[in-house]
């Protein structure tokens, strides 16, 4: 424990050291303070923008899009993935189409969506939905397929029908793999949201960062970037926590069985 604490302390100290280095280098004009304003200035601006509600408001707008597209993708692609994973005819029917669309980088469809939907919420939600769809679909499909046949056979022996088997056996047993898809998709949603806001939007964190750069409000730009970094970190931590709790019971339950 003591060793762990001192390691953590060293690591945080290193981060502070980097910030300090930035401050000194910028103050002494070793790098252009125009492009890299002193860290203290950036942090003060960040604090003010957070307190006066500017950044939180932009963040709420971005979150609406991110989670809108993300949950839409879960709602559509999890049932679809289960169907494709369990029923061979459905898999055969949709596999070629998904294989052809999958390699498209999600941001490349932004212009198409802008043509049809303008630069409003719908465009971003659809683009985020698209970018989250494939990780969720593929992991759900794989998860459903990799369920131990013994589990299914056992349930069948006990007289469970098809729907009971799907709901009571296959879904719980493949939940951790399905969750893996969500875990991959959420950071992608964040990235694609920022891209789509930078390409075409009226508000949102991505838009904020780009506008501040273009109007040369560099400390404000860094404040936006810090916020994005913190959001990325927080989402990652949340996912790791959820994963630990999910995988925790999963391991205990299924390793005992198999």
């Amino acid at each position: 424990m003591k060793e762990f604490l001192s390691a953590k302390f060293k690591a945080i100290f290193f981060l502070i050291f980097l910030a300090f280095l930035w401050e000194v280098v910028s103050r002494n004009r070793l790098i252009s303070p125009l492009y890299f304003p002193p860290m203290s200035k950036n942090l003060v601006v960040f604090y003010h923008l957070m307190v006066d509600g500017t950044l939180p408001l932009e963040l709420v707008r971005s979150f609406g899009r991110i989670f809108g597209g993300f949950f839409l993708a879960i709602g559509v692609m999890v049932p679809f993935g289960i169907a494709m994973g369990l029923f061979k005819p459905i898999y055969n029917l949709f596999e070629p189409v998904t294989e052809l669309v999958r390699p498209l980088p999600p941001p490349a469809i932004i212009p198409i969506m802008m043509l049809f939907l303008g630069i409003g919420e719908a465009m971003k939600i659809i683009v985020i939905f698209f970018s989250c769809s494939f990780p969720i679909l593929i992991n759900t499909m794989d998860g459903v397929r990799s369920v131990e046949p013994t589990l299914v056979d056992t349930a069948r022996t006990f007289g469970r029908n098809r729907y009971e088997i799907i709901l009571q056996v296959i879904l719980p047993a493949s939940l951790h793999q399905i969750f893996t898809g969500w875990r991959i998709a959420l950071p992608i949603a964040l990235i694609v949201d920022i891209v789509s806001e930078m390409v075409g939007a009226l508000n949102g964190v991505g838009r904020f960062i780009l506008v501040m750069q273009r109007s040369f409000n560099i400390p404000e730009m860094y404040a936006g970037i810090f916020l994005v970094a913190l959001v990325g970190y927080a989402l990652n931590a949340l996912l790791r926590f959820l994963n630990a709790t999910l995988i925790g019971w999963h391991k205990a339950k299924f390793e005992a069985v198999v």
Partner: protein
Amino acid sequence: MKVIKRLVYDTPLSGGLLLLVFIILWEVLPRYGIVYARYFPPFSTVIGALFEGIRSTEILRQAAISISRAFRGYFLAILIGVTLGTLTGTIRWLSDLLEVTVELLRPMPSVALVPIAILLFGTSDSYNISIITFGCTWPIFVNTYEGTKSIDTQWIDTARVYGASRLDLLRKVVIPAALPYIVSGLRISLGTSIIIVTVTEMLASYKGLGFFIMETYNAYQIPQMYAGIITIGIVGYGLNRLFLAGEDRFMAWHKGWTAKFI
């Protein structure tokens, strides 16, 4: 009846038919004005624009520029990622020192750094390359780190007993054992590099496929825009296929090798 059932269950025939249906719809719906043809031109028009772009070498040139940028950023990322991953994986105090910084930077969406890179590099290739390198380094770095951590200490001890030096250990034990992990990081990053090059070109560049689709979008040359998007898809798909082929060829030793030992 039985034949139909077998076709449905065992062959991708139905999927091929569905694909054909989609293509026919893509052709017919705009032609009859059911979807707005200016925004969604018929399939044949888009393919025509694609071939025209290839014939005039316009699309090929833009693709070459994008691929070149993606590769330069990607190789820089390999260099940084593998080096850092090996160092932090083998030197304890270094990984302790960098942990928090890495955990803070890694989940950061690379595109958020676009404005900084524009300030620093303008719209030169260095702008695209720096963002690509930032985005591609993490998967390689993390996989290399995990790979060096996964090594059985017995292998290291055995090599040491046979008198291996530190460099020998690295060259003959650590790197080969971590290679399968590194390769999977490389594959993830290859896809990432194509995505990021597209994004950075869409946001601020005067060349490349990402620029091409935004330019044609703004100029309202919609068939050309679709042709550009299709080209990006083909490039991404082709590079991934090439990588998988290379992996089969050069990593084939790994399957038999680990199977023998474990």
